[in-house]
């Protein structure tokens, strides 16, 4: 059947036959790089439009509907505007760090794309410690925000950056622990292994209540990690005007904006991979015929469907909840989420050792 992995394999075979081994590898890397960059751009366009449409739907508005049919070209027009806008560097700013920060934010997003399985056996880099790699690289994200806040030489930016530093470092713990529960359950850090272990049912169904608890904690923690409302204290429009990116304009701002949305996509993709089976179709135990029917839906549709469902969930939060205060935010993590996820991890370990999961 038609699938991404077949296309990838045929391209690889063709390259190997036509070029020498070294050149073939270089070409493959180039193609992968271009694919990631274009996926990045497309995701940015789609997610920004989706956010605007979702918010409009929740706020009894129409949303963008002028540029292109149903406004689908609106983001393109916005990007064009941001491209031609002057990218200002404030006089008192640390020029190198100031200009480096948005690029760093983007690069981290791109790095995180590598081990994600977009479709059946379709992955840029099959890393045996994929999950660890993701949590390690995503924690570098805070550096770009701190860098931006510090280099801007603006008090609002600095406060936004400090808030964000405290927030991301705290919530990383819960996110990491809830990822660990799945790792404990399936006994592997490799992303394809994790997905194949869900062939007879997704972990959220197989792992009893602890898996559901860790899924909820994961969603809360990643919402905070990506600085999305109700945890958008780093930006906190009504308090800090725009937080860490107050001084950014033009394309530099656009890079931050893009990085935010791509990060949302990535964390949702990870959530879908770990808890909802990634590209794995919805299977129920031994129901062979049902599973066969589900397999007819292409794996990439399963993956993107689940991911976009989680993205919608996170957007739903943003347009419903008021923002937390900084001390409440840290209380929530250190007093509630962290102890709960620790106990939860213990429970899951017991379940895994005794083999109680399905």
């Amino acid at each position, binding site marked *: 059947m038609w699938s991404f992995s077949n296309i990838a394999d045929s391209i690889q075979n063709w390259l190997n036959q036509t070029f020498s081994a070294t050149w073939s590898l270089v070409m493959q890397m180039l193609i992968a790089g271009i694919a990631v960059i274009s996926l990045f751009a497309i995701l940015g366009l789609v997610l920004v439009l989706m956010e605007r449409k979702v918010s409009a739907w929740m*706020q009894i508005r129409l949303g963008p509907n002028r540029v292109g049919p149903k406004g689908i070209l609106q983001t393109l027009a916005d990007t064009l505007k941001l491209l031609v806008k002057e990218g200002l560097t404030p006089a008192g700013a640390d020029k190198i760090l100031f200009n480096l920060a948005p690029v760093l934010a983007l690069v981290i997003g791109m790095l995180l794309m590598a081990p994600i399985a977009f479709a059946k056996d379709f992955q840029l880099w099959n890393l045996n410690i994929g999950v660890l790699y993701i949590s390690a690289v995503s924690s570098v994200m805070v550096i770009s925000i701190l860098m931006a806040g510090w280099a801007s030489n603006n*008090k609002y930016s600095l*406060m936004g950056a400090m808030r964000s530093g405290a927030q991301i470092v705290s919530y990383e713990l819960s996110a990491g622990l809830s990822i660990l529960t799945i790792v404990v359950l399936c006994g592997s850090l490799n992303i394809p292994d994790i997905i194949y272990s869900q062939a007879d049912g997704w972990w959220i169904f197989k792992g009893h209540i602890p898996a559901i608890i860790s899924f909820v904690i994961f969603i809360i923690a990643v919402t905070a990690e990506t600085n999305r409302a109700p945890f958008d204290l780093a930006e906190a*429009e*009504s*308090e800090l005007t725009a937080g860490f990116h107050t001084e950014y304009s033009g394309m530099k701002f656009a890079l931050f904006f893009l990085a935010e949305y791509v990060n949302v996509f990535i964390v949702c993709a990870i959530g879908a991979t770990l808890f909802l089976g990634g590209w794995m179709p919805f299977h129920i135990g031994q129901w062979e015929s049902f599973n066969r029917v589900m397999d007819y839906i292409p794996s990439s549709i399963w993956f993107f469907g689940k991911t976009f469902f989680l993205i919608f969930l996170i957007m739903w939060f943003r*347009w419903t909840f008021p*923002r*937390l205060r900084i001390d409440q935010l840290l209380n929530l993590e250190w007093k509630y989420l962290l102890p709960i996820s620790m106990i939860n991890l213990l429970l899951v370990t017991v379940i895994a050792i005794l083999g109680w999961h399905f």
Partner: protein
Amino acid sequence: MFEEIGTTTEGDLIINVGPQHPATHGVLHLVITLNGETIKKLEPHLGYIHRSIEKMCESLTYRQFIYVTSRMDYLSAHINNQACALVVEKGLQIEVPDRAKVIRVLMAELTRIASHELWWGAMAMDIGAFTPFFHAFRERETINDIMEETCGARLTMNYMVPGGVMQELHPNFQKKVKEFIKLFRLKVHEYEELLTGNIIFQNRMKDIGVLSKEDAISYGCTGPVGRGSGVSCDIRKLYPYDAYDKVQFDEVIETAGDSLARYMVRIKELHQSISIIEQLIDNIPEGDYQAKTKAVLKLPKGEFYQRVETARGEFGVYIVSEGGTTPHRIKFRSPGFSNLSALNHMAKGSKLGDLVAMMGTLDLVIPDIDR
């Protein structure tokens, strides 16, 4: 005076919130001394939108000066105009027809609902919830449409004149108001479901920006801010004007004095306003909408004062007349100014995020503070 130019003193961070800032909803300038995220001192700076309305009014006749007051608290434009009309009527001892009185009260209550709606949306936006803003504006738009039909304007209606109201009600008025009230009862419930019960919202509001009863009195806080601290200060109840003595309504008083109390006062006031409108909408007396007045109004020599309850609190008009066609001296007592003065007291020691929530519950309209 020039403190705000320096960056730090004793390691504190001094930031200027405003004059252009998303949370101030106007050109208010707050100089805040911060220790980390905690507020040590807060100093409001005014004057960015000063238009010397009081001085302007001294060169306008008693018919003309009313319209300038719409530009002060533009969300209570009707009620400001009403106060001015009342003080002129008091000076000239004009007997206002009953019909005009009832129409005035109806309009004032509709204005109050519209104002509280905008406050609700803007305050929710201050604490980070965007959606309520749009939901509030949907209903506010209906009120604006009703106003537009009768008064010809949506924001600065200029409908009140000395002796009554400017023109007859639109034939659709009663029908539309009844429809609106029916819809609005459901919507208020929806608002409460969306925001009031939310745990994040409760945590952001409860025990934040506490203003004790004594402090509220000494700072001169009125309106929902004063009543949230347990001060009985509803002018409609204490010194009834126009048709307020003919209607049944409760003065909403909460005793906690925190942000949540101020919030609840306004939400409950919405219900009271609905009930006032319901009592009057079917009982608008027949008769003239305006008393016969002289073409040129001249207040007798003396001093005149009238206070009314706007959506933000007690609004007073003080006129000194020398007997001419224009006031000799005019002074407005605006509720926002006194309410703002309590902000430093309330905000001291709380977090920056709470300041925004507090300002939201004070319901500041900057042109009202800075006339």
